[in-house]
């Protein structure tokens, strides 16, 4: 690709003044820089992934002694060790992560959809105040809230339960913010008006008319939330003490920090981390088709 670009460049340099020459040549030349930048960016992002993939194939003996990007021979052993570790507790963690991320993202998307729609469509006293408070929430890193949330849930005797991780996830300021922006852009006031004229109730308008228009936006909210929860560490770390309820992030952390007597189980952690990326990739592949709806839904009004 780059050789092609260079060859196109050459004549442009020789005949700078010609009428047809420069435009395509210039386009090519400019494209080289962004392409290179993007390629570098991609390399920067993919290199660690490649490291995880290759490191997962190495046995404990090979992990630190062979060349970094030389595949090892231990993948099958690593997988069976991971599977056997404490009677397969890894899969319990995987299931927990799926539950926290799946259910948590679903609940928070539902809340975001309702509140985002309300904030975008209805005019009521205090609307901007509510929205501004939410905006402040977006700026607040969730990490800061983990301990207060723990103390709150402790009052209700809910710590160390599935609910203790799910409940704080239900309201996501960023999700509401996105849903509001999206609803404002995708659900025209005329359509809502027309629905009212035809005698539809507000709930019916929301579920039958607005919600389908908001789907692509909500898919984005769902994905954001899912990934955020899947990678979440501090909230479950503080809330949970029973390691049968741990998500993967926390479970792998206990494999690393086993105290001085026992070395960290690096091979298991690396293999576990690799497997944990799988569901995320699968989810993105599946959800991609919903994103393409975006183009169609724009055509409602003309």
């Amino acid at each position, binding site marked *: 690709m780059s050789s092609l670009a260079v060859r196109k460049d050459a004549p442009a340099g020789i005949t700078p003044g010609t009428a047809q020459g420069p435009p395509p040549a210039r386009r090519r030349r400019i494209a080289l820089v962004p392409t290179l930048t993007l390629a570098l960016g991609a390399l920067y992002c993919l290199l660690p992934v490649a490291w995880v993939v290759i490191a997962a194939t190495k046995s*404990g*003996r090979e992990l*630190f*002694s062979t060349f970094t990007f030389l595949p090892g021979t231990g993948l099958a052993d690593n997988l069976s060790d991971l599977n056997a570790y*404490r009677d397969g507790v890894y899969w319990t963690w995987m299931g927990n992560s799926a539950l926290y991320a799946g259910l948590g993202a679903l609940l928070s998307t539902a809340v975001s959809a309702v509140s985002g729609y309300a904030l975008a469509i209805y005019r009521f006293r205090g609307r901007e105040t509510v929205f501004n408070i939410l905006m402040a929430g977006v700026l607040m890193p969730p*990490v*800061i809230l*983990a*301990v*207060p949330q*723990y*103390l709150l849930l*402790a*009052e209700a005797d809910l*710590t*160390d339960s599935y609910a203790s991780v799910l409940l704080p996830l239900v309201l996501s300021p960023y999700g509401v913010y996105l849903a509001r922006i999206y609803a404002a852009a995708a659900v025209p006031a005329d359509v809502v008006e027309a629905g009212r004229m035809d005698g539809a109730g507000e709930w019916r308008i929301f579920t039958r008319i607005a919600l389908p228009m908001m789907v692509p936006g909500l898919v984005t909210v769902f994905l954001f939330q899912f990934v955020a929860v899947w990678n979440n*560490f*501090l909230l479950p*770390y*503080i809330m949970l*003490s*029973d*390691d049968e309820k741990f998500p993967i992030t*926390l479970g792998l*952390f*206990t494999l*690393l*920090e*086993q*105290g*001085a*007597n*026992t*070395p*960290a189980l*690096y091979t298991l952690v690396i293999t576990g981390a690799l497997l944990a990326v799988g569901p995320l990739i699968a989810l993105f592949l599946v959800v991609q088709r919903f994103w393409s709806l975006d183009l169609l839904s724009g055509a409602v009004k003309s």
Partner: protein
Amino acid sequence: MPDTKQSRFVATAVAVTLGATTLAACGSSDDGTGARSGPAKLTYWTWTPGMDRVVDLWNEGPGKEQQITVTVKKQASGDTLVTKILTAHKAGQGPDLVQAEYQALPTLVSNDAVADISGEAGDAKEQFAEAVWQQTTLGSDAVYAIPQDVAPMMFFYREDLFEKHGLTVPTTWEEFADTARELKEKAPDLDLTTFSANDSGLFAGLAQQAGARWWTTEGQKWKVGIDDAATRKVADFWGGLVREGVIDNQPMYTPAWNKALDTGRQIAWVSAVWAPGTMATAAPDTAGRWKMAPLPQWSGDDTVTGSWGGSSTAVTTDSRHKAAAAKFATWLNTDREALAALAKNSGVYPAATNAQLSDAFSEPPGYFSNQPDFYTQAAAIAGTTAPSAWGPNVNVAYTTFKDAFAAAAKDRSDFGAALTKMQDDTVADLKKQGFEVAE
């Protein structure tokens, strides 16, 4: 005890959020409604692998008779766990039993998170060496935990390479320095060892051996002696070797360090009794070529060592069954069967003196199969452990150590300045937490 960035981040994040309120709390304990034992269901936070199997022995044996059931909730070790225990304690939701490193006990005690069990478990004292037991009493009449494992420090070296280069095993630190110089002369590519600042416990143990007492009390005031003469001697010694360039200045526990050990670029390691486990992962190809010897001494007539690691079992003030919990903690750390199971399932080197020579330790660790009397020697060395003196903000001193000494080692600059910073930061933090500090 490799410390990850993640764990440090978590500890910081939690500590910041908790703020001074938790840490400054230092008050009276609500007296126990829980003096009765069994029937009781207890929860136990521990990071020791295989602990669930050891606890099963209790639940099927003595625990069943006394109707005391213990459930293990496995945790990640380190400072983050201390923070988590304090958070849970603030909410009154702590478990009944926690595993705690010795240096974390003063923090837990000053936050009123662990209970005095001298009434229930005071008799266990006979089972432990004086220097070990005093870490759980903090020099008072109270007993805040039962010692579980100890980690006496030792000197590990490549026997074959020492022979090849005509080196003798150093018995004093002076000889240690000479050995490093001699090796550098004979084989400039090799290093005797490295000075690493990424695990503060190592430096603390070395200072302890030299006779340092970092935290002491004077009446109601804390006295911080991090830059005392003994520690300064240790800092200057290692700083001098690094500046001279006769030892390496790269951190431990990195892939590069593993490789250096495995390929014989570094031929010795100052470590503790748990080193065989770490080395089996770090340097798998050189198993059977290493040997263990006592730590070099500051003067020829001494036989003292420090400790690097070790932990205890404490009963929390949140527990409603303190007597039952104390009974379990005592059983776990003094009963023959329990200690044998801990050694077998979890690789725990016991704090209980008798257990150090039990059947479980008749064979050397696999990595040291060439040294049949490994554990006999280890037990003898463990008996020479110097007392240690921990305070309520070891974590702050440790964090400053990592930052200041890592920078000093990297630049090969003055370790004394780094030590002064460690002292100043620790004193400043104590004052900030509301403790009185004697100057």
